[in-house]
């Protein structure tokens, strides 16, 4: 498959159409033939009715759920039927509460539901091509396309993206080697070319798929670096959660923002720790003020945990573990967590030994939020957690761009199709369709097209011809 053409096919596209990080409400727009289907796939109206059952242009209250059925955000959704929409196509817009995380999450759900990331200026381009926008604005639209594509080019030569490109190129090269060998054998059946066996095709494609998988795993790291790691600090009252938080904040003064959300009484602290952006989500109560003392930690903990990628369980090292501590520990089972034993300055009740079962081998760090002793150990542990064990800060390759992530996923899916076709001993001509697609998707990241390259490679690698 040739991918140059793909970008301007009238597929369903989606993107966040409000400026990220600004304003309390963010809007995700899905536009194209399958907009309604994609919208229905991720949005559930509180009424239980389908979006399509409402009159068009009605704002419907409901929630977005992910594939596992867990709730992502409380939102309003609206369906606009083409041509009565911005792009003059079918459009579903989802308004959510503007947190970068839920916007990104809903966006990636929309990709999973069949939309693809919109290109720069693409909504406006479609609006224009569909007759929605005035002729006078045509030039402005072209300027947007041109300047954004220039900007994208500039981004591409930046260090981080440059590294990604060369990594993707490497993986693509591995695929091309397989493709070129099979194509050469197909087009020159009587030349003495050493033909790859099915086993070696499987081996090689598996290896490439692994590489893409690794990049995708790093996409998670990239996402953390881009959006911040969602952390929840939990623990029963008075174990020192707030002093631990204050201790973290003291460590790095680069507080990106601090604001109280208006809708769900959420406080988000954003700061850097050991170079890692942290987004600490919490209910107001986490900062125990003198006039507000929490009575029950468990209920509250449960609620914050759902949003977190890492749970920090704070225990009081100067006292024995209580029933409530164990209840809280139960909550983090099966999640990513770390246990902080605070108040190490007050002498130890040796509670580490009272951790049993799963928690015997849990990551435990003793520190004093008051003196800051042990904080460096925590920071080191956190870096390891984000970058993986043997990676040092800054030398990894992280996929930071949703479009790239999407293309990597598509490529991986095609490779998996190719693998199952090869396992079923399907003939080359079928397997090749999936392999070429897989290489095509990778090429969209690096800006390379497949067809001519394959032919050039055939001639440079093999001595063929009459």
């Amino acid at each position, binding site marked *: *498959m*040739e991918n*140059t*053409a*793909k*970008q*301007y*096919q*009238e*597929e369903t596209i989606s993107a966040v159409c409000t400026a990220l990080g600004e304003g309390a409400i963010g809007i995700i727009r899905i536009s194209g033939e399958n907009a309604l289907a994609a919208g229905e796939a991720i949005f559930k109206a509180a009424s239980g009715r389908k979006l399509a059952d409402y009159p068009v242009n009605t704002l419907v209250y409901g929630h977005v759920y992910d594939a596992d059925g867990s709730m992502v955000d409380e939102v309003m959704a609206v369906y606009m039927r083409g041509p009565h929409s911005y792009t003059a196509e079918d459009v579903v817009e989802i308004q959510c509460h503007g947190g970068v995380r839920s916007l990104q999450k809903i966006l990636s759900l929309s990709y999973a539901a069949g939309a693809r990331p919109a*290109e720069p*200026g693409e909504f406006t*381009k479609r609006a*224009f*091509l569909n*007759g929605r926008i005035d*002729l006078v604005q*045509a*030039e402005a*639209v*072209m*300027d947007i*396309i*041109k300047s954004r*594509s220039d900007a994208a080019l500039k981004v591409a030569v930046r260090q981080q993206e440059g590294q990604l490109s060369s990594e993707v190129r490497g993986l693509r090269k591995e695929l091309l080697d397989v493709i070129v060998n099979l*194509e050469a*054998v*197909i*087009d*020159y*059946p*009587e*030349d*003495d070319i050493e033909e790859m066996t099915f086993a070696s095709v499987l081996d090689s494609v598996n290896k490439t798929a692994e590489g893409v998988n690794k990049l995708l795993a790093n996409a998670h790291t990239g996402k953390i670096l881009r959006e911040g790691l969602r952390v929840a600090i939990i623990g029963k009252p008075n174990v020192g959660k707030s002093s631990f938080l204050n201790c973290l904040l003291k460590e790095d003064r680069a507080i990106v923002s601090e604001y109280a959300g208006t809708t769900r009484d959420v406080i988000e602290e954003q700061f850097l720790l050991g170079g890692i952006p942290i987004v600490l989500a919490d209910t107001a109560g986490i900062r125990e003020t003198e006039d507000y003392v929490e009575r029950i930690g468990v209920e509250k903990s449960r609620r914050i945990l759902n949003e977190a990628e890492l749970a920090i369980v704070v225990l009081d090292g100067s006292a024995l573990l209580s029933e409530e501590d164990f209840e809280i520990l139960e909550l983090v089972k099966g999640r990513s967590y770390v246990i902080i034993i605070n108040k190490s300055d007050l002498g130890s009740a040796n509670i580490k030994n009272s951790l049993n079962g799963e928690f015997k081998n849990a990551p435990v760090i003793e520190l004093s939020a008051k003196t800051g002793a042990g904080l460096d150990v925590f920071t080191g542990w956190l870096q390891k957690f984000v970058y993986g064990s043997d990676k040092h800060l800054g030398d990894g390759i992280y996929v930071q761009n949703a479009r790239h992530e999407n293309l990597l996923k598509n490529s991986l899916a095609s490779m998996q199709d190719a693998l199952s076709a090869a396992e*079923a*001993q*399907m*003939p*080359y*001509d*079928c397997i*090749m*369709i999936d392999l*070429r697609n897989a290489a095509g998707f990778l090429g969209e990241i690096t800006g390379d097209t497949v*067809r*001519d390259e*394959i*032919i050039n490679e*055939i*001639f440079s690698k093999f*001595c*063929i*011809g*009459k």
Partner: protein
Amino acid sequence: MYITDNYDVIVVGAGHAGVEAALAAARLGGKTLLATLSMDNIALMPCNPSVGGPAKGHLVREIDALGGEMGIAADKACIQMRLLNTGKGYAVQALRAQEDKPFYHTIMKQTVENQDRLDVKQLMIDKLLVSNGEVVGVEAETGEVFEAKCVILATGTYLRARIVYGQVNYESGPNGLRSANKLSQSLLENGLELMRFKTGTPARIDARSLDYSKMEIQSGDSKLRNFSFISSITERSQVPCWLTYTNEKTHKIIRDNLHLSGMFNGMIEGVGPRYCPSIESKIVRFANKERHQLFIEPEGLRTNEMYVQGMSSSLPADVQLKFMQTIPGLENCRMMRAGYAIDYDCLDPLQLKASLEHKGISGLFSAGQSNGTSGYEEAAAQGLIAGINAMRKINGQEPFILGRSDAYIGVLIDDLVTKGTNEPYRMMTSRAEYRLLLRQDNADLRLTEKGRSIGLVNDERYEKFTAKRTLLERIIHQLSTSNVAPNAETEQKIKNIGTAPVRPGMTLLDILRRGDVTYKKLAAEFALPELPEVVAEQAEIFAKYEGYINKQKQEVERALKLENKLIPQDIDYHAIKELSSEAAEKLAKIKPVSIGQASRISGVSPADINVLMIVLEVKRRREQDNE
């Protein structure tokens, strides 16, 4: 100078492109002249004695389905037929025939001579006559002028052709034929852009001088097959080819004499094809390869000449003989013709429309090696299309253009007129993005209706085709509507076939999808009709490939949206400042007819395409406002 005659269509050159072009034009009712340098060399095969192979065999089938001649002649002159790539999937299977070269020529000569409305003349054409941007005829060296509404150039490798053997070179076409020296000049004077390409051919050796015990025999398939969907040939005696290899001694002689090779001493100016390298380039470029394989192929039944495939060379004749005699089986070989390199002028195909008409000169068409391609099959395919479109132009009809998803012919021509080529272009299956749809087995299903509506498919072919199609439709319907009840009787039948048990709700078609089930086995157990083999095979392919075929069909559908967005030809690309300068330049030169075609031009980015789409919309709205 005097006017001898006037024609609808004049075809210059009677090679594989020329004969198809002339036959198509005459069969579509045009008064046609076929001008050849020699009546004794019509449809000459100056290089390998074979037709077909991957992608090329596909082209032959497509030519045949459209009503062309190559498949019929190749079946008649065939002395060995093989189906290649049998284990690699239906899409890439291809027929390849060894041909009796003199017989092939004789068959084609008879065919063109006997064709109504077609005059075949031995003429050297010196001049193209153009008036006010329209072609009006040609002038021969005799001073005779032939007027025409359309002229098709099918000049092969003859334009300013020069032959090189080592240090020796002289003006000549292949096989001692004259080269056409004045026509190139006339084309340049009319503003055509020419390129210089190179190709070559190996030596021919005497069959009696070979030791066959030292070579490996390569026989034809025992099962008889034909290219043409209407061939009635059911018996064929076949002759073998022979496989042998070069060795270190061979390579040493070549290396020691490299300085004498036309390829390396700077004597050859043309760009040669990478897929057809001379033996000296193979040894230089792939220095680590210990041996190169050679096929020794008969040139016909009534000649002792054997073609040495893999041994193209522009080394001096004595060196060629010396290194050939180091090869097992060839130790005492006698050389009958030395291999040579040839360079020649051809048109830059970017000057052509997809109809193969020149963009600047109305009524001038070009086909075959003169468009920078290589190969008999590629030439014939273009000849057929040029002949069809010349007549359609004369008749005031829209040009006949095959898309990339219709046929290899479509891929070939689109590649030529959109991307151009910097070496003689050879068709390969890997050039076709919808390969699974463009199979050699379904060329008739893809193209016969089109050939019928053009007017080249006669009743005999059409009736044979529709009968086959009806059978196929019927059996697919029957298979897909026959549910298999999971009872004891069925279980026994499934066991007899030797496949896994069936699940409830399965149809016979679902069972046929399985790798281990053939139509024959299925038919025996489930009382299905006995079918001609080709129909049963189509049903099997339909069942087994359906998922992949649908994948490709969806891609085609998406791509067609772009192919259907047409670009007016009067657009001024240089005035669009948002286009990159490279894109503007390429677009202005190639003048793509659609957004789809524009997107395939190298150097035109997705952003350029988006800009172009907006420009088109602006233009459309302005025109609408003016109305």
